[in-house]
């Protein structure tokens, strides 16, 4: 009986903690929310940031040890959602660690910006469905 209780407890812990990466955010200058119809540009490390942008905040994605939902596309989708909530229309990756021996996750440092121009004209990363 004790064994079953322990197993169920273990399952509950794994179930609750698994999959999601650890997200740290710092919004220094939040802007009005953006709607789903407003474009958000996803700029990878090698994509240039346009001039005259206003910084909205920072995001950091880390491995929570149990993370499995942490592919580059998944993290960029989550970053885009956070950007919209805080009124940013540019997601710029400033540091990227690929999965390696120590972690099966992408680990990203991201800056969020508000740009008054047309973000769809920027050279950007094209999101894929995993």
């Amino acid at each position: 009986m004790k064994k079953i209780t322990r197993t169920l407890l273990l399952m509950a812990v794994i179930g609750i903690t698994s999959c999601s990466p650890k997200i740290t955010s710092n919004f220094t200058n939040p802007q009005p929310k953006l709607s789903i119809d407003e474009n958000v540009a996803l700029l990878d490390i090698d994509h240039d940031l346009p001039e005259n942008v206003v910084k909205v905040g920072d995001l950091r994605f880390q491995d929570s040890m149990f993370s499995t939902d942490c592919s580059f596309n998944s993290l960029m989708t989550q970053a885009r959602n956070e950007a919209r909530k805080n009124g940013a229309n540019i997601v710029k990756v400033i540091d990227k660690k690929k999965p390696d021996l120590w972690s099966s996750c992408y680990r990203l440092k991201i800056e969020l910006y508000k740009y008054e121009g047309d973000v769809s004209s920027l050279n950007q990363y094209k999101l894929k469905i995993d």
Partner: protein
Amino acid sequence: MKIIVKTTLLSSILIFSSCATIISGSRQNVEILSEPSSAKVYINEIEIGKTPVQKNLKRNQEYQLVLKLDGYKTYQTILEKKFNAWYIGNVAFGGLIGLIIDPITGAMHKLKPEEIDGNLKSGTTYKTERGNLFIKISMDIDPNSEKVGQLEKLE
């Protein structure tokens, strides 16, 4: 003989210990239908086709689903990851390996349209058959749009 029995037993435990992964797999087939059909379907803002459309999605992720059709309101929902009951099978088989493997593969989850206060978004129905998810969406007419005409096929 005892060795064969023991080996068979051990192999069975090892093989069947990742219940959800074996039964459900790490991906789930999702079929999206709409009324009327031919609505453009976007998953995570990527156009995947027009309804009816199928997509094989990872179970360990959440997806944003949007349907757009001229003259109708844009439909939006989230495909959430919920607990897959096959994961409990690991307890029945005593499979510690399965308890670890199923969360890694994502098989401990299944995708479902989001519910708010226990209710699906208006116009949404779904069913799960053999692990596949079928979602049907009734699109609402956009009151701001006005019908100005209709094209008809020439005889």
